[in-house]
């Protein structure tokens, strides 16, 4: 999935790096210093519905063109995460204990049309 450029109207991944210092949370989140908060946005016209991402294989590109020339009933297709990974955090809890945990599905790696 391409990262969104300002003029990209189609479904893409919008990247944001969040530094915990910017949140004022570096006193209790020990590691890492920040993380990628990415999210998916963009249009999913019918011929892109079900495609894993804009840079699909040739076959699915042709298939998309066929769909585009024979528009099916307008079903709404949404730009959603298709791949995510966990984020490993080391932090101080309310009792001052040092906790290391992996938060599942925290970072969006790819977007696509549902």
């Amino acid at each position: 999935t391409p990262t969104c450029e300002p003029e990209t109207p189609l479904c893409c991944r919008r990247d944001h790096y969040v530094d915990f210092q910017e949140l004022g949370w570096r006193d209790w989140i020990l590691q890492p210093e920040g993380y990628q908060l990415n999210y998916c946005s963009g249009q999913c016209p019918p011929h892109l519905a079900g495609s894993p991402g804009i840079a699909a294989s040739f076959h699915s590109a042709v298939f998309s063109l066929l769909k585009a020339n024979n528009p099916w009933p307008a079903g709404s297709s949404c730009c959603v995460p298709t791949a995510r990974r966990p984020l490993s955090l080391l932090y101080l809890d309310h009792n001052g204990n040092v906790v290391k945990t992996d938060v599942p599905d925290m970072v969006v790696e790819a977007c696509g049309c549902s």
Partner: protein
Amino acid sequence: QSTRSACPSCGGPTLAPQGERALVLELAKQQILEGLHLTSRPRITRPLPQAALTRALRRLQPKSMVPGNREKVISFATIIDKSTSTYRSMLTFQLSPLWSHHLYHARLWLHVPPSFPGTLYLRIFRCGTTRCRGSRTFLAEHQTTSSGWHALTLPSSGLRSEESGVVKLQLEFRPLDLNSTAAGLPRLLLDTAGQQRPFLELKIRANEPGAGRARRR
């Protein structure tokens, strides 16, 4: 809304960069607290000494990933009571009550100073919330002649904490060499300044079922 500036995916107005940044920071706070099952960010009232923190971070091997839906915890003794008697002292730890039933590995780390004379023989008991009068449960014993950090494995079942999450451990020292006395041992062993503060190293299985399963949105 004017279609020209409609946000492509939600039909709302496209956000100005500053507005989008502020929204992203709010989203990040919600996402982190939700991911850690916290309702609000922890308030650190007793900052840990840097040396103790560095040791904890080294112990937790930040590079290695925690196996799916597990947690590792380092809990420093919050109260070290050495006045109970010459041969005994009490360590108090403040754990989270949620960890009780998912704890599967526990070790108590103690630092024996180089100046320590002779052989150390130590027994560890779990106390009720009172001052260990009457009911106490034997957890482990340890004997050593070397100084430095020692990890004493404890039965995880012995650390089930009350609703409050408080865990009290009683250390009982006994001199093995006839000419050495245990007198003043607690003072020697249990550093409260924090550079070598005793701590528990715990491994916990996250408590919600199927925590590692990918959630379908």
